[in-house]
């Protein structure tokens, strides 16, 4: 399963990168969303998949799945949500102020450096 996941992660990263390289702000933000999914799955896969039961002591199993990647990912999910929300509002405000969401048009002028 880990090998399948490696390819799934690779494809997620690939799509994310392609989206982030496009001009539209919305597509860039969608790209960051995909990128964080990929990163989360990568962390989870690195820890090994299905190595035991759910990490709840109440299960009283002989082995548990590694809880550390899960703790890391939980933090990461929340942070990436914060970033996404921030970006979205930034894109919205940028459009309202500047009238475009095309990053090529959002470049600083030559004279304004």
């Amino acid at each position, binding site marked *: *399963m880990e090998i399948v996941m490696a390819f799934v992660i690779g494809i997620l990263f690939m799509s994310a990168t392609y989206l982030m390289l496009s001009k539209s702000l*919305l597509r860039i933000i969608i790209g960051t969303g995909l990128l964080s999914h990929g990163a989360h799955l990568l962390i989870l896969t690195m820890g090994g*998949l299905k190595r035991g039961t759910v990490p709840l002591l109440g299960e009283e199993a002989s082995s548990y*799945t590694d809880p*550390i990647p899960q703790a890391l990912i939980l933090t990461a999910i929340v942070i990436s949500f914060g970033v996404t*929300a921030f970006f979205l509002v930034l894109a919205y405000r940028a*459009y309202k102020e500047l009238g475009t969401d095309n990053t090529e048009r959002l470049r600083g002028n030559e004279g304004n450096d």
Partner: protein
Amino acid sequence: MSLLHLAILSPFLLAIFIPILYKLFRKVHTGWFVLPLPILLFSYFLSFISITSTHQTITESVPWIPALGVDFIAKVDGLGLLFALLITGIGSLVVLYSIYYLAKDKEKLNTFYVYLLLFMGAMLGVVLSDNLIVLYTFWEFTSFSSFLLIGFWYDREKSRYGAQKSMLITVFGGLSMLGGIILLYIMTGSFNISEIIDQAAAISTSPLFIPALVCILLGAFTKSAQFPFHIWLPDAMEAPTPVSAYLHSATMVKAGIYLVARMTPVFASEGLWLWLVAGFGIVTLFWGSFNAVKQTDLKAILAFSTVSQLGMIMSLLGLGAAALHFDDIDNSFFGAATAAAVFHLFNHATFKGSLFMVVGIVDHETGTRDIRKLGGLMNFMPITFTLAIIGTFSMAGLPPFNGFLSKEMFFTGMIRVTELNIFNFETWGMLFPVIAWIASVFTFIYSMILVFKTFTGKYQPEKLEKKPHEAPMGMLISPIVLASLVIIIGFFPNILSNSIISPALESILPNNDIDVHISFWHGFKPELFMTIGVIALGILLFLTLPKWRKVYNIFPKKLTFNRLYDSGLEMIQHASNKLTKTYMNGSIRSYLVYIFAFFIFILATTIAVKNAFTFDTSNISSIGFYEVLLALAVVIGSISILFVKSRMTAIILLGAVGYTVSLFYVLFRAPDLALTQLVIETISVALFLLCFYHLPKNRNEERNRFKLTNAIISIGVGAIVTVIALSAHSNKVFDSIAEYYVENTYTEAAGKNMVNVILVDFRGFDTLFEITVLTIAALGIFAMIKLRMGGKKKNENK
């Protein structure tokens, strides 16, 4: 921490309190709070004379970075003490002078005195540190404080120009000196000067010896404004005059001379040292004095004069180094050249300091420093005039002032160069006395210009901004003290010889017992005739100055070093601007391309170099039906996002991928993740849709055309991540630390959900910071939505 360290650091400590004192006591001139410190330090250092005059040294050490061999070693020996006395002595006088020079209500006195104190402390650090790294640190500190002081009147363009110029040149030299220091460390394994001197003979054959020598000399030459680096000093004259008197004539510019003197025992065995130091010195001497004559600004004359005098001291030091090559008979003589250097160093500080203050008075009382506007001030400022006479005559080398004595010693040194028979001096050495003599003629001329064009001749009141009158007494005290030193030392030079000069010589030329005795009358020797010749030709040329001034027009203006500096600076700015513009083009896409390309490059190289790619199918979990289904869903979802045109579809697909990922979490035994992901994904999609509602409709121009570079980079990133994921699974360098949590979750934190316990207990701070990040994001979002004043104004202006 000894009293000595405290003395070095005390100016820094006082500097902290100056702004407070300035605010608290607005009615008192801040200078009065500063003045006691240099006086106290001066008397403290005076007490060391009894120790150093018996050729003893005091060393106090405080560990600073012991692991790197850097200790703050404060060492007082003859040479360091001479400088320390100059720094604190002239410092006291300059502070006193500045109290009257800088008006209390007009100038930003708090910053001025902070800068001045920073400089004083840094300079003391330079001359009293035995560790080269500490010395270098203080050295750069002097460059910074000099920069700040030159740019004190930062609203003037010339001040900013001069500040930047001095900074660029001296810091360039400083960096090269650091290189030299490191080379010395590589050769000797020590940063301590005394230890390096002990190994001087051993390292002289090292291939790094010459590079180290050149690097160190670059530092010294830039700092001491030696040709061709002298160009910063005249522009540094934009600083307030007390600063010019202090930094740019008496102390900081002599740091280079200090360094050369300090390093003489290390490098003097090399002929190149003699040639470079003496050669650059004599060229600077000539060039400075020659250029001083054509200046019309009083301070510019003094600046070039300082350049020239520094060159003179430098050349004497260079020749003095020859003493380390000879037996006892010649020693005494070349030692005398060094003695002349030390003596003149002291004399120069006295007469040049007083002259700067005199020029400051003239500037202050008349509003101009242009000699074409000045003249006939003798009747208005009799005391200032007298002081000017004493200073300039000493500078010109006339008896009975101290400048005469050191100039005679200088001539003696130059004449004896011709007798040297090492390092090709027998062929080229003849040039030294000739250049020295010509330069002395020019020195005489500009000295006369300085005093007579200002104080005699026709009084031109219509050209002056103010009606001239004698300066207040407070302003005159400092130059009077210095001028009286000029006379006293002129008559009784030997009060210095055993207390100051001889111990300093001991530091420059160790183990050479040199008897220093300075006398007025040497008999009818060539030196005397040289002086008489200087005076005769000098008077003649001074009187006929208008006739031969054209000489200065011969030099094409395009070929000056200033031009070279300016155009060089411009070219560098232009080129770097161009270079930066090629890659910093303002397009976020380009930046992301750089980031991703670098990401691929660095990871691929690392994997290739470390041979890290392994593929291990053992210890692998089974593939279930549902998992394959989910994997397919993620793959199809994420790839189709790339090709859909509608934003709505893209957002829905992103949501679909997100929900699939949360199902993955369910299958991979991570219920907490699944729950969180479900909630977050729902909110995210809602947010996306909200945002989508406000964003512009799809127009033709926004069609997503396929781009090859983007595709290549994306595929590269995907591939490298896959490789990493595979290798990460196959390589297990460490065992997981999960066992610890399994065992301790209940006993330590009384919780049964391991993931939760890790988040809120074991790694509680992580969660705290996570919340902080969310708060910051929330604040940012709030600000962006609510605060739109600036934006509206902008739109209205359009």
